[in-house]
C-alpha cells in the first residue's frame, strides 16, 4: 500500500508544517501551532516506518528525478533507502515526534511559540532529506539548511546577548568544517566524476580494473576534507567549542538537534562515505585519533562542570567521539548502533534536564538536590538514561558501547581501547555525580521550589525510556548481532566475535564509576572539594575547558579580525578614496570649465559688445544734430563726386 515513492512525502510533511507555521502561525494558530508540527511529524513517521520495515526485511529502494540539465550534465535528486538510512530514518522520525510533543508542553506561553515550531519543522525537513538523500549535493544542501536551523534555534532567545553570540559561534564554527566538506566534495567529483552514493559505491568496491584509474592521493584528500565536515558538525576536536555554548537554546532544541539528530549527521556522513575511507585506509588513523582525543577530552571536562546542560553537552561530544573512533577502526556497525542508542538515551537525558529546569527554574546543580521525591517521573527516566549512558547491562548503551570497545580491542588498537575504557569510567562518574547531586541528598538551595512537569512532558520521557531500555537488543549477541549483519549487507566491514574480557572490563568501569560518584556525592561532598584542591592544575584545566575558547580567541579570531580591519582600511581609504578622488576630480574639471566659461567665452561675448561700442563711439559723432553739418557733408561729398567724375574724364 505504501510504496517506496511515498518516501518523498516524508520530508514534505514537515516542510508544509514549516510554511503553515511561518505564514499563519503568529496570527491565527498561536498555541495550536505545535499541533501542526506534531501532526506533520506523525504523518512522516507513519509513511516512513512501513518503508523502513520493508528495508529491515531486506529490501532496498532508490529512485531519482532530474532537477535540471546544464549542457551535457544533469543534476538529479532522489532517495536511497538502504539499511543505513532506514535505521536513521526510523530513529529520527520517532525521536523527533516525541521531542516535539514534549516541546509543546515546555514552550507553552512563549511569545514566539509558532515560530519555534516552524523552525523545528524546517529542521525536521532538512534532517529527513539528509537521511534519504542519494547524492552528496542534496546531502550538502540539507546539511546547510540544518546549520541554518541550528543557528536560528540556538539564538531563539535572541534578546539574550549570550544566546545570539552562541548562535553565531555555532554557525561560524560549523562553517569552517563545511568549507572542508565542500572542498572534499569537489575533489571527490574531480577524482571519481560522480557524487551519487550508489555510483561511488560501485566504483570503489568494483573490480580492480575500474579502480586502477583513480588517483588515490586525491581520494585521500577528499576523504579527509569530507571528514572536516564531521569535525565541524559533530563537534569533534578541534571544532567542538560551539556545542557547549549551543545550550543557550531552549532545551527541546538541545535535545533534538544537539543530542539526537544533527550532531549525529556528521557520523552519518562518515557512514555514508565509508567506502571512500575504506578505499584509502591511510586516512583511518586520523579519524580514529581525533575521535579518541575528543572522547577523552570531553569526558575530562565534564568532570568539573556545574551547569546541568553543559555536563550533558560535553557528554554528547564525548559519545560522538566514541562513534567517530568506531568508524575510524572500520567498525561501521558499532558506530551506527551506538548512534541509534545514544539518540534515545541522550534525548531522554536532555528532556529530563529540561523538565528539571522547568520545575526548578535553575540550571546549576549546586543549587539542586533531593528532587527525587518532588519529580519522580523525571528522576526515574533520568536515572534509566544515565544507566544506559554509563553502560550498565542490559540497557542499550551497554551493548553499543561494548561493540565499540570490542572493535578497538580486537583490531589491535590497544591504546585506543584503554583510553576509551578510561573514558567510560569517567562517563559513569560524571553522570552519576550529576544524578546524585540533582536528585538525591538534601535540597541545597532553599529558594528552589520544585514541581513535577505536566503529562505532556513526562509521557515522551517514558516513551524514550522504553527505547533506551530495549533498543540494545537488535545489536546484541542475543539476536546474534542482527543489526551489524543487517548493515553489512550494504557495506562490508569486519565483524568480531564477542569477547567476555571486553565485556567484563566495560562493566567494571561502569560500576566503579557509579560507585565512586555515589560515595563522594551522596554523602561526602567535601571530599570533592579536597580532591579539587589537591589536583588543582588538573581541576583548573578541566573546569576551564582546556582554555580552548581563550586560545581560539587570542590566536585565531583576533588575527582574523586584524586582517579584516586592514582590509577595511584598504577599502575605506583606497577604494573610497578613489571614488572621492573621482568626485574631487570632477569638481576640479568643473572649476576649470567654469573659469573657461567665465573668462574666455564670456570674454568673447563681452568683447563683441565692447568692440561694437568702440566703433559706435567713433561713428556716432557723425550725428551731431546740426543741419548745417549735414549740409556741409553733403556739399563736400558732392564736390568729391564732381572731382572724381571730372578727373576720370
Amino acid at each position: 500500500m505504501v510504496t517506496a515513492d511515498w518516501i518523498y512525502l516524508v520530508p514534505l510533511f514537515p516542510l508544509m508544517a514549516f510554511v503553515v507555521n511561518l505564514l499563519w502561525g503568529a496570527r491565527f494558530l498561536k498555541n495550536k501551532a505545535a499541533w501542526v508540527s506534531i501532526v506533520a511529524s506523525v504523518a512522516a513517521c507513519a509513511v516512513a516506518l512501513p518503508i523502513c520495515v520493508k528495508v529491515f526485511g531486506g529490501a532496498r529502494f532508490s529512485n531519482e528525478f532530474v532537477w535540471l540539465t546544464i549542457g551535457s550534465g544533469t543534476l538529479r535528486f532522489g532517495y536511497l533507502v538502504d539499511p543505513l538510512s532506514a535505521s536513521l530514518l526510523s530513529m529520527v522520525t520517532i525521536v523527533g515526534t516525541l521531542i516535539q510533543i514534549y516541546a509543546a508542553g515546555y514552550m507553552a506561553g512563549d511569545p514566539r511559540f509558532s515560530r519555534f515550531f516552524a523552525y523545528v519543522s524546517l529542521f525536521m525537513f532538512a534532517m529527513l532529506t539528509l537521511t534519504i538523500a542519494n547524492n552528496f549535493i542534496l546531502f550538502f544542501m540539507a546539511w546547510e539548511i540544518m546549520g541554518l536551523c541550528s543557528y536560528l534555534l540556538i539564538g531563539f532567545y535572541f534578546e539574550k546577548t549570550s544566546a545570539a553570540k552562541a548562535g553565531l559561534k555555532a554557525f561560524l564554527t560549523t562553517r569552517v568544517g563545511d568549507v572542508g566538506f565542500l572542498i572534499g566534495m569537489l575533489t571527490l567529483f574531480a577524482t571519481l566524476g560522480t557524487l551519487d552514493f550508489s555510483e561511488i559505491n560501485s566504483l570503489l568496491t568494483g573490480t580492480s580494473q575500474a579502480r586502477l584509474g583513480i588517483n588515490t592521493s586525491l581520494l585521500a584528500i577528499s576523504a579527509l576534507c569530507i571528514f572536516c565536515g564531521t569535525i565541524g558538525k559533530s563537534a569533534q576536536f578541534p571544532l567542538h567549542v560551539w556545542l557547549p555554548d549551543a545550550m543557550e537554546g531552549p532545551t527541546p532544541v538541545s535535545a533534538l538537534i544537539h543530542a539526537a539528530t544533527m550532531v549525529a549527521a556528521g557520523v552519518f556522513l562518515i557512514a555514508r562515505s565509508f567506502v571512500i575511507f575504506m578505499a584509502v585506509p591511510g586516512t583511518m588513523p586520523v579519524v580514529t585519533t581525533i575521535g579518541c582525543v575528543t572522547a577523552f577530552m570531553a569526558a575530562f571536562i565534564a568532570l568539573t562542570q556545574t551547569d546541568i546542560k553543559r555536563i550533558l553537552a560535553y557528554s554528547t561530544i564525548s559519545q560522538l567521539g566514541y562513534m567517530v573512533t568506531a568508524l575510524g577502526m572500520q567498525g561501521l556497525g558499532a558506530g551506527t548502533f551506538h548512534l541509534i542508542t545514544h539518540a534515545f538515551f541522550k534525548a531522554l537525558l536532555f528532556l529530563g534536564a529540561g523538565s528539571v529546569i522547568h520545575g526548578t527554574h535553575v540550571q546549576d546543580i549546586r543549587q539542586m538536590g533531593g528532587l527525587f521525591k518532588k519529580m519522580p517521573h523525571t528522576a526515574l527516566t533520568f536515572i534509566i538514561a544515565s544507566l544506559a549512558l554509563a553502560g550498565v547491562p542490559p540497557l542499550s548503551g551497554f551493548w553499543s558501547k561494548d561493540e565499540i570497545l570490542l572493535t578497538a580491542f580486537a583490531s589491535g588498537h590497544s591504546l585506543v581501547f584503554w583510553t576509551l575504557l578510561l573514558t567510560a569510567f569517567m562517563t559513569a562518574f560524571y553522570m552519576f555525580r550529576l544524578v546524585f547531586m540533582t536528585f538525591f541528598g538534601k535540597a541545597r538551595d532553599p529558594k528552589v521550589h520544585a514541581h513535577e512537569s505536566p503529562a505532556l512532558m513526562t509521557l515522551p520521557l517514558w516513551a524514550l525510556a522504553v527505547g533506551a531500555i530495549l533498543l540494545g537488543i537488535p545489536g546484541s549477541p542475543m539476536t546474534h548481532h542482527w543489526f551489524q549483519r543487517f548493515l553489512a549487507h550494504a557495506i562490508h566491514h569486519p565483524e568480531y566475535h564477542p569477547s567476555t574480557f571486553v565485556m567484563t572490563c566495560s562493566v567494571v568501569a561502569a560500576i566503579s564509576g557509579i560507585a565512586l560518584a555515589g560515595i563522594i556525592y551522596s554523602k561526602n561532598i567535601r571530599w570533592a572539594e579536597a580532591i579539587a584542591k589537591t589536583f588543582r592544575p588538573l581541576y583548573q584545566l578541566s573546569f576551564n575547558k582546556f582554555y580552548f575558547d581563550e586560545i581560539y580567541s587570542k590566536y585565531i579570531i583576533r588575527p582574523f579580525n586584524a586582517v579584516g580591519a586592514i582590509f577595511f582600511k584598504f577599502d575605506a581609504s583606497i577604494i573610497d578614496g578613489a571614488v572621492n578622488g573621482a568626485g574631487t576630480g570632477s569638481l576640479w574639471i568643473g572649476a576649470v570649465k567654469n573659469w573657461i566659461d567665465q573668462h574666455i567665452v564670456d570674454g568673447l561675448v563681452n568683447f563683441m559688445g565692447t568692440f561694437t561700442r568702440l566703433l559706435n563711439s567713433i561713428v556716432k559723432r557723425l550725428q551731431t544734430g546740426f543741419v548745417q553739418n549735414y549740409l556741409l557733408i553733403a556739399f563736400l561729398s558732392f564736390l568729391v563726386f564732381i572731382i572724381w567724375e571730372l578727373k576720370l574724364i
Partner: protein
Amino acid sequence: MDLLQLAIKTGIYALMAGTLVFALGVVMLKNLFHAALSLAAVLIGTAILYLVFHAEFMAAVQILLYVGAVITVIIFAIMLTEHIAERSIIQRNKQSLPALLGVLALLVLIGKVLLKTPWPVNPSTLDARVSVSDLGVALMGTYVFPFEVISILLVGALIGAVVIARKDSRP
C-alpha cells in the same frame, strides 16, 4: 557809340561787382537787418541785370515778388524774432573754414569747366525779344502743367505755413 558801350559795359561790370559785394554782406553781416537789406540790394541788382538781358518782365517780377514780398516777410520775421541785445554774437558757426574751402574748391572747379566749355550761342535767340503776351501764351499753353502744379504748391505752402505758425491754442 564806343564810349556809350564802354560806359554801359563798365556799368554792368560795376553792377555785378556791387551785387557780389552786397552778397558778401548778406552772408557776413552780423546784424540780420542789415543782411536783409543787403539781400534787397542784391535782388535789385539782379533785377537790373535782367533788364540788361532784355528780360523786362522778369525784372519787374523780381522787384515785385522778391524785393516787395519776400524781403518784407523776412523783415517781419526778423523783427518778430530779433534779440536786439545780441549784436556781438558771432554769426559764423564752427564749420566756416571747411565751408570756405569747399566753396572755393567748387568755384575753381566749376569755373574751370565753365570756361572750357564752348557754349553754343544761338544768334537768333540773341536777337529775340520776348513779349509779355508770348510769355502768357507759353505759360498757358506749353507750360500749363507746371503752372497748375505751382498753384497747388502755393496753396499747400500757404496752408502749411499757417498751420506751422499758428499759436498752439489748446488748453
